[in-house]
Each structure stands twice: as structure tokens, then as C-alpha cells.
């Protein structure tokens, strides 16, 4: 059987798990094996029912009085015990912070390799997987050995598809043997993020600024443009490095991944570590002084010129339109 670790936060499903189940079901079908899932902590029991629509025939409910919140080592140990009792051929999780973290611990505890952020898998011994490198800018084909195969599924690469499992959903309640050590790393407190502005990852319009903006004051006209379009401001690493904007605004491999309807990239050259973060944008408009800037090859529209001249005039035009 193929075992998928469902990610949730105190009972709230992480939708990325459905991508993982879609991926896992495809593999299970090709191998003619059942797809099973594991839910950790009592708080997640209610999610079990909904998994059948994605092809899950059996859900392992891991119950333990201390599993009321996320604790990576305790989650990993729970999976390790299921590996021992259920002998899955492969164990998968989402390629999220938590998914990669838990499977890395599983790999460490079982001394097995783990392939993070896969986009394709070809079963066999070894498995041949395709996985992402450089945050998605490069792909790798690799051979993955081990019993079971451990892998995570790259986020946003697999379109979620339903595929009902036949028969009645089987529930299997298990209580793992967890000790204090398994809980030495756990969430002890939560602090809500402040800020009521539109978040970068949810914004419909993102106005990005790069080194070409020149200073933190230079962002004033970009802030205004974003406000006019009810969007958010983002930036390149050249900007955060200078301290012109906080790192929370950075788009790219080591920053945020954005998926707006429109990304307006001002004074950004288009390094691959930046553009990998805006792959999800439906449309890109570039404002750049250099007609040869690589980012033009990712854009639908471009204006060649000094952003400090173009953006203020654009803002004035939008205001004119709004006042009509």
C-alpha cells in the first residue's frame, strides 16, 4: 500500500495534502495497490471522512494525549510505527515546511533516503523520481532506493483531482509509544501576524520593485500604485539586501511565491531566483530602463524607461480615471 501523511494544523486541513493524495493515488493505481492515509492527533479525526473522495480506502488515526499540536519528532515516530506495522511500499507527504520536516525525521529514524519535492514518479526498484532543485528553476531525475520509498510532493505542481475509493472507508485507530524526547520540539506558543494590509501571497495585483528603485524612499510611488490597485508591494533580494524593504516583501526562491492576476515588475532584471517566485502570475508587466533585461522574456507587456518617471505618471492617470 501507499501511505500518505495528511498535513493539518490542529484539525485544519492543509489543501496541499490533496495534491499529495492525487499524486499518491496515481502511483497506487499503477501499482495496483491501495492508497491509505495517516492523520495524527485526535483533533484531525473529522478529516478522515473527506479523504475517501481522493481515493483513500483506509485511514490510520494516530491518537495520543500529547498529540494535540504539531511536534515534528512525535509525528515522525508515529509514521515510523506505521511503517513497521503496515509495511507500505512508499510513504509520502507534501513538500511543505512540515511535510519535508516530518519525512526528513522519518528518513533519519529509519536510515532511509528521502526525495523532497517530487513532481513525477516511476515505480520500480529503484523508483525513478523527478524532483525540483533551485526552488523550481531546475529539475532532476533521480533514483530513489529504500523500503519503503520516502518522498514529498512539490507544492503547486499537481492539479487536485478527486477519485473515489470503492467500498467502505476503513478506520484504524493506533496509539504510538511516544516518549518525552519525541516532544522536545513542539509549538509552545503562537503569535498572530500583525498587519492588515493585503498579503503578498493572496494579492490580485503585486507591484514589485528591484534595485532600479534605488532607495527605500523610491518605493513611495510603488506603494501608491499598489494602493490604487488594491494590491501589495513586493521586491527583489537586491532590495532586501540593502535594507530598503523588509524580507517579508521579498519574492523568489528564498522569499514568497506569488500568484497574482498581474505582477508589475519595476526595475527588476529577472534573475532566475526571482522569477521562480512569480511563475504563478497570470500576467507580467515590466517597467525597466533596459530593453534587453531578461525579465522581458517572462512578460506579456513592457514599458522601457525610468520607473521614477513612468510610475508617477501612471499613478496620476489611474487617479484621473478613478475621479471620472
Amino acid at each position, binding site marked *: 500500500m501507499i501511505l500518505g501523511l495528511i498535513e493539518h494544523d490542529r484539525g485544519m486541513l492543509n489543501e496541499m495534502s490533496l495534491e499529495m493524495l492525487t499524486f499518491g493515488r496515481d502511483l497506487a493505481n499503477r501499482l495496483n495497490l491501495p492508497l491509505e492515509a495517516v492523520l495524527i492527533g485526535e483533533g484531525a479525526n473529522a478529516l478522515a471522512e473527506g479523504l475517501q473522495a481522493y481515493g483513500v480506502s483506509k485511514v490510520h488515526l494516530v491518537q495520543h494525549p500529547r498529540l494535540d499540536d504539531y511536534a515534528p519528532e512525535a509525528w515522525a515516530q508515529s509514521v515510523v510505527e506505521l511503517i513497521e506495522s503496515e509495511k507500505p511500499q512508499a510513504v509520502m507527504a507534501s513538500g511543505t515546511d512540515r511535510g519535508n520536516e516530518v519525512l526528513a525525521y522519518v528518513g533519519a529514524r529509519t536510515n532511509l533516503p528521502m526525495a523532497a519535492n517530487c513532481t513525477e514518479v516511476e515505480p520500480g526498484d529503484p523508483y525513478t523520481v523527478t524532483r525540483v532543485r533551485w526552488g523550481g528553476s531546475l529539475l*532532476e531525475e533521480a533514483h530513489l532506493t529504500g523500503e519503503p520509498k520516502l518522498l514529498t510532493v512539490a507544492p503547486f505542481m499537481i492539479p487536485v483531482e478527486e477519485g473515489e475509493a470503492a467500498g467502505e472507508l476503513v478506520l484504524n485507530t493506533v496509539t504510538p509509544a511516544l516518549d518525552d524526547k519525541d516532544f522536545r520540539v513542539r509549538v509552545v506558543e503562537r503569535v498572530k501576524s500583525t498587519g492588515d494590509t493585503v498579503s503578498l501571497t493572496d494579492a490580485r495585483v503585486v507591484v514589485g520593485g528591484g534595485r532600479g528603485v534605488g532607495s527605500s524612499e523610491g518605493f513611495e510611488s510603488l506603494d501608491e500604485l499598489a494602493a490604487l490597485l488594491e494590491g501589495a508591494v513586493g521586491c527583489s533580494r537586491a532590495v532586501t539586501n540593502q535594507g530598503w524593504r523588509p*524580507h517579508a516583501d521579498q519574492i523568489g526562491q528564498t522569499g514568497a511565491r506569488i500568484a497574482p492576476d498581474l505582477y508589475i515588475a519595476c526595475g527588476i532584471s529577472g534573475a*532566475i531566483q526571482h522569477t521562480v517566485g512569480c511563475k504563478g502570475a497570470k500576467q507580467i508587466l515590466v517597467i525597466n530602463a533596459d530593453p534587453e533585461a531578461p525579465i522581458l522574456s517572462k512578460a*506579456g507587456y513592457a514599458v522601457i524607461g525610468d520607473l521614477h518617471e*513612468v510610475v508617477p505618471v501612471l499613478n496620476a492617470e489611474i487617479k484621473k480615471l478613478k475621479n471620472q
Partner: protein
Amino acid sequence: MNVLVCVKRVPSTGAKIVLTENQREIETRYLGFTVSPHEECAVEEAVRLVEARGGASVVLTLGPEVAVEQLRDSMALGIDRAILLETDGSEWDSMATAAAIVEAVRAQHDAGTDFDVLLFGNEAADTGGYQAPIRVAHALNLPCVSGIKSLEIKDGAAIAKREGPGGWEVFEVSLPAVFTVKEGINLPRYPSLPGRLKAKKKPVDRIEPQRNGGKLKMVKLMNPKEEVSQADVLGEGPGAAPKIVEILKEMGVV
């Protein structure tokens, strides 16, 4: 307080990654080299910890002889000494890398240095394996908090924060401990000229590590299929503003 920080030399790729003919490496002939931004921040964090509490900071890398460049870069920022786990430059998987780092940490212990804090980047910029630090922590029986963007040390314990669903998740662990750092935890300083000069004289321990691993084997590298668009140039300078507004109207964003 003794701090170890582990970094990895990677090419500074530009707007496109070019592969060698056999598709097993990135064509680096015309590229410079660097470490991941996550690791730059880890180095800065190590320097700050030791500045604030005394002790020593050590930077470690597993890589070819030329990776001494990244060790010197780190020492130019204030790291005291370096360890090079020297390889022939071929790629080591996460298990092999972690095992070699564990050996090096044990050897440091035998030589009289115990680390209170072991820092890594959240993931290597190139291979993105997401596991070497966790494997190191497991082998050394240390707690590990990954993806942190804040670290505070208080009475032998560490309070680390990372971004989770809906806000900050706070973790508290006792030291020694392993942390993987994400960019944003701090704003790394730039090296000073005296820093660069000093770095040239700081010691680099060279060790030839044992290689065991190879259970996740790269077969080949591929560029993802990407649509290359030919941007429709709306015009030059501010005169193009009305055309932009037309486009915005068409898209329904204004």
C-alpha cells in the same frame, strides 16, 4: 558559547541555468560562486551570537578545495575558524553529507570543542534536499527547529520562531540544539576590508571525509519547460502610461 555554521558553495546562476552536455552539472565556466541567502543569514546569526556571549564561531563546508572561498567569505564577516570537508567536487547526497558533518562534529568534541548551537540554512540552494540538518540532529541526539526567523538564547535554552499557518509558531528547546535558518532572520552585514584581510590568516582545518550514502542518486538534470514570451512593448517612458491604463482596464484590475 560555541557556534557551528554549515554552508554550501553553489553557483550564482543568472537569468537562466545552463547545463553541461552530459546534463549532470550546471555549466559554471562563466559563473561566480556563493552560498544560499539562508546560509548567509545563518553565518550572520553565528557571528552575532558569539559577539554577544563570547566563545567561538566555526564555519564548515563539505565541498571541493575551491570552497575555501566561501569559508573565507564567512570568516571575513567575523567567523573565527573553518573546517573544510574536502571532496573531489562530485555531488554527495543528503545522507552522506549529514554523516560526514556528524563525524566532523564528533572530531571537534574529541579535540575539545563542543558546540552549543549548530546552524544550517533551511535548504541547500541547489539540491534543496530539506533533510541534512535533521539527519545531523538525529545522529547527535539533539533537538532541531527548522525554518526559523528569530532566535533568542536565555539560560541554556533557545526560543525560536518560525512562520506557520496563520502566524508565528514559537518553539523552546534546551541547548545544545540544531537550527535551520531562513533568510529574513537578520540582515547580514557586508565584509569590511580589515575583515577580509583577517580572514586570509584564519585557520582552515582540512579533512577528507568518508563517503557513505548514495541512496538517492541523481541521474540527470533538466531545465523545466517554460513559456518564453515576447513582451509587447507598450512604449518608452511616461508617454506609455495611458496604454498601461488601457491594459489595466482590460484586465479589470482598475
